[in-house]
Every structure is written in C-alpha cells, then in structure tokens.
C-alpha cells in the first residue's frame, strides 16, 4: 500500500512541480544567497571578491556621494509612483465602468505600446525633446521660450520616460480591483444617503485599496532598479541605483559594493511586500 502511495501521489507531484522547483532553487535562491554573501566580503585589488568578512561595502553606502544617489533614486521612484497612481486611477475607473466587451478592448489598447520595443519608445522622447526637436521648436515658435531648453539628460525627462513605461503596470491592478467592486455596494451606499463623493471615499477607495497597493509595488520597485531609462534619456548624467549597480559589475569593478546595493534593493522590496501582506490581507498575490 505504501509503495502504491508513492506512485500515486509523490511521483506525479515530483514530475510536475519538480522542474520548476529545481529551476527556482538553482537560478533564484542560490544566486540571491550568493549575492547577499558577497555583499559582506571585501574587495580585492582588481575589484573581485576576497573572502574576508567586511562591512566596507555597506559603509560605502553611507558615504555622501552614494547616499545622495540612493536618496535621489528613492525620491524619483516615489514621485513616479504617486504620479502613476494619480493619473492611472481615474483612467482605470473610466475603463472599469464600461461594459465588459468594450473594457477588454480598451485594456488591449493600453497593452499595444507595451509590445513595442521599450528602448525605441524612450528614444522617441529623446527625439521629441532634443535641442533641435519638435517640442523646442514649437515652444520657440509660440514664444514661450527664447532659446532651446535642454530637456534631455534631466531628471524630468527620465521621470517622463518612467511614467510612460510604468503606467500600464499601474492601471491594470487598479482596473482589476475596481472592476471587482460589486455594483450593489455602491447602490446600497446611495440608498443609505451618501453622495457620489462620499460613496467614493467611504466605499470605493477603501475597497479598491488592494489594487492600488499592487500598483504601488509594481511601479515603485522597478523604478528603483531601473537603468535603461536613465541610460537612454539620462546620457550618463543622470545616475540612479540601477546604473551604479551595473557599473560595479562592468567598468568600475567593485562586486561587494554592487552586491550591497542589490541587497539594499532586496531589503526595500521585502519591506514593501511585508507591509502589503500585512495590511492588504491577501494570501495569494495575484499580481497581474
């Protein structure tokens, strides 16, 4: 009987869930552990890892130049997130109120730009905002400005790039959450005397909060670690955490420092997830 139980239950489970489990352990768990490990190691002459325990890399994070970058990255990611939520929520609301057929088409329309190459889309902003580009020309023609303004390689443009890249990720979870809102709840609220605004703040907003929180996570965390947007639109002048990490493994060789910064990102991520699971009270994270 025991032998049969193995054949019936364990073997199929192993065959089906085995490959994915193995992959996750080999290519996610182990590398992450190793990175955390390296962050506590010392830097050798050539930037590689010397296996001696040291807090050096973490101390460097508190060094003013690096610290400034970290704070700036968090600030930019934060602003990007807030803007995405503020811009995205009404949009999600509008779509959610449409009949299902139309809504799914509208959602599809949001996704299409996402299927174009992201770098080329960023490049488009560059083309538009470059010194001799259409925006500058328009502004000069209309008389708002006298000479071309250097939009490129600024934090502002980088933020624009991030917002346009992240907006679909903000809209989808909020749309999903708003769409699930039962119409009868809104009707009950109105029946009991609440105005549209009151219903929104007392019923709609709190009940769609899980969706908002999902959006926050889906926008804030990638924004922290971004480096393509800064590369394309920042031209080396705008550097955030993502760029610094990349450089530690490229031109400037300092693996432990890169690892430490990575650990910082992991910690911030973990913190947000922890808050999410605690307050949004959802066991299974249905992200997208």
């Amino acid at each position, binding site marked *: 009987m025991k032998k049969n139980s193995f054949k019936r239950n364990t073997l199929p489970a192993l065959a*089906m869930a085995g490959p994915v489990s193995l992959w996750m352990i080999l*290519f996610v768990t182990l590398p992450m552990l190793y990175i955390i490990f390296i962050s506590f190691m010392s830097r050798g002459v050539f930037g590689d890892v010397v296996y001696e325990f040291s807090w050096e890399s973490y101390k460097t994070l508190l060094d003013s130049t690096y610290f400034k970058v970290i704070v700036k990255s968090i600030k930019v990611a934060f602003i990007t997130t807030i803007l995405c939520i503020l811009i995205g929520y009404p949009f999600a609301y509008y779509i959610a*109120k449409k009949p299902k057929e139309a809504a799914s088409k509208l959602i599809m329309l949001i996704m299409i730009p996402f299927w174009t190459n992201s770098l080329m889309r960023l490049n488009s902003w560059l083309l538009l905002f470059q010194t001799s580009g259409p925006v500058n020309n328009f502004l000069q023609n209309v008389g708002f400005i006298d000479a071309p303004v250097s939009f490129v390689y600024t934090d502002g443009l980088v933020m624009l790039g991030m917002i346009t890249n992240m907006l679909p990720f903000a809209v989808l979870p909020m749309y999903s959450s708003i769409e699930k809102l039962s119409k009868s709840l809104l009707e009950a609220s109105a029946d009991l005397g609440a105005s549209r605004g009151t219903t929104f703040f007392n019923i709609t907003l709190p009940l769609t909060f899980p969706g908002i929180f999902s959006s926050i996570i889906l926008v804030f965390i990638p924004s922290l670690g971004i480096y393509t947007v800064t590369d394309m639109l920042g031209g080396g002048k705008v550097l955030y955490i993502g760029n610094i*990490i990349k450089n530690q493994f490229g031109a400037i060789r300092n693996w432990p420092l890169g690892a430490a910064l990575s650990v910082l990102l992991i910690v911030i*991520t973990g913190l947000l997830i922890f808050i999410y699971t605690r307050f949004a009270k959802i066991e299974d994270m249905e992200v997208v």
Partner: protein
Amino acid sequence: MSISKKQKKQRREEFIGTVYSIIIYSILYIPVFVMMVFSFNNQRYNYYWNGFTTMWYSKLFSNSALTESLWYSVVIAVLATVISVTIGTIGAVGLKKYEFRGKKFINEMLYIPIIVPEIVMAVALLVIFIKIGLALGMGSILIGHCTFCIPYAVVTIKGRISGDDYSLEEASMDLGANRIQTFINVTLPSIMPGVMSAAFLSFTLSIDDVVMSNMLAGAKNSTLPVLILSMNKSGITPDVNALTTIMILIIVTAMILNNLIKNVLKKRKKMEEAI
C-alpha cells in the same frame, strides 16, 4: 422632453472621462507614433526630420549587425518561450494540485523574479555563472530569460485553473485514462488559453529584454535591444525604427487576425446550429 439634471450630469462626467482617456492614450501612443514616423526620416542619424523616404525599409536587411541581432533575439525568444511554457505549465498544474513540503517556499520564490528589480536578478546570476565558470553567451542569456519568464507563465496559468478541473480529471481517470493521458486529453485543452497567454507573454518579455541580455551577454553577439542600447550614444539609425515598426505591425496584425478568426468561427457555428 427635456433631459433631467441627473442625466446632464452623467453625460458631462462621461465627456470628461472620455477626454481624459484620450489624453492618456495619446501620451502612451505618442512615442509609438514618433518611432514609426522617424522610420521614414531621410537622414543618417535621427537628429531631426529631414524629409520623407522609404529607403530604410529596403536597406534594413543589408545592415548585418541589425539582422544578426534580430535573429539572435528571435532564436532566444523562441527557445525561452518553449522552455518556460513547458516548465511553467506542468509546474502550475503541479503546484495547484499537489501538496508537498516546501511548496510554500517555491511559491514565494516564484514571485521574486517578478517583484525584485531585474538588475538584481541579473547581477546575481552573473556572479554565480562567473563563479562556476560558465561561459557567457546564448546559454547564459537563455537561462536569464527563462528565470523571469517561468514565474510569469506559472502565475498566468495558475490563474486559469479552476476547481472544476479536478472533477474533469477524476472523470477522465474514472473512464479509464491514466494520468498522462488525462493530462494530454483533458487538462491541457482546458488550460490552453492560459498556456497561449503565457507563451505570448514569455515571447514579448524575452524579445524586449535589455537588462538580463546586457549583463549576461558574451563578447560576440548581442540581442536586438542590447544593440539598440549601445547605439544610443552615437545615435539610432532609422533602419532600426523601420525594423521595430515592422515588428509591432506584425504583432498587432496577428492579434487582430486571431480575434477575427475567433469571431468568424463563432458566427459559423451559430449558423450551423440554426440549420
């Protein structure tokens, strides 16, 4: 017959909503539009508009660096999709159905590549590969892509498996099919839409990926996005615009065709029944 105040208010709100949405859609589509327009730019580098030409579309295929990287990207994307969807499908079914020790752990691990910034994942894989001496190249990039595609595939497919599916599997076994036959004849067809979504998602994620492909690349070849990134400093040539324009047109056409075919089949079936 005058319109009530309430209806007027609703119409106004609807109007504002529509205008707002159009603005948002515009912001999302402007970069796409610009990308397509500048593929017709009569100039070597896309600094400013210099007249209309279609030459880049024909010159596309003579740019060897471009076509090679395109081919490289497509091969990786196809392989990544096949591997990720296979592992992801059986993984999703297995994780949903069976209980085992460490299941919670694996479920949590699956969310890490989705949530944690890609640069961290890429760097972590890089140091492991260098430590074990794995040469960087197509293999390492492929592993990197699969590592974020598999979780997306699992999450997508898991979402499509409903409780009903268990009784279907039991019915199949009751009628004499063993586990493998049941999986092929009953389970797979019922989750097929999820599998297709997962395949589409994996493909687009892989072909558009920059971070993993950049960090885990070997010395020789680079994927298309990495090539574009490296061209940024000197300026991106319009033939790249032409290529990416063609790519998005193919994808959108495929989607529209897919929808059309589905609708035609539905209509035909309705007519068959009426007869």
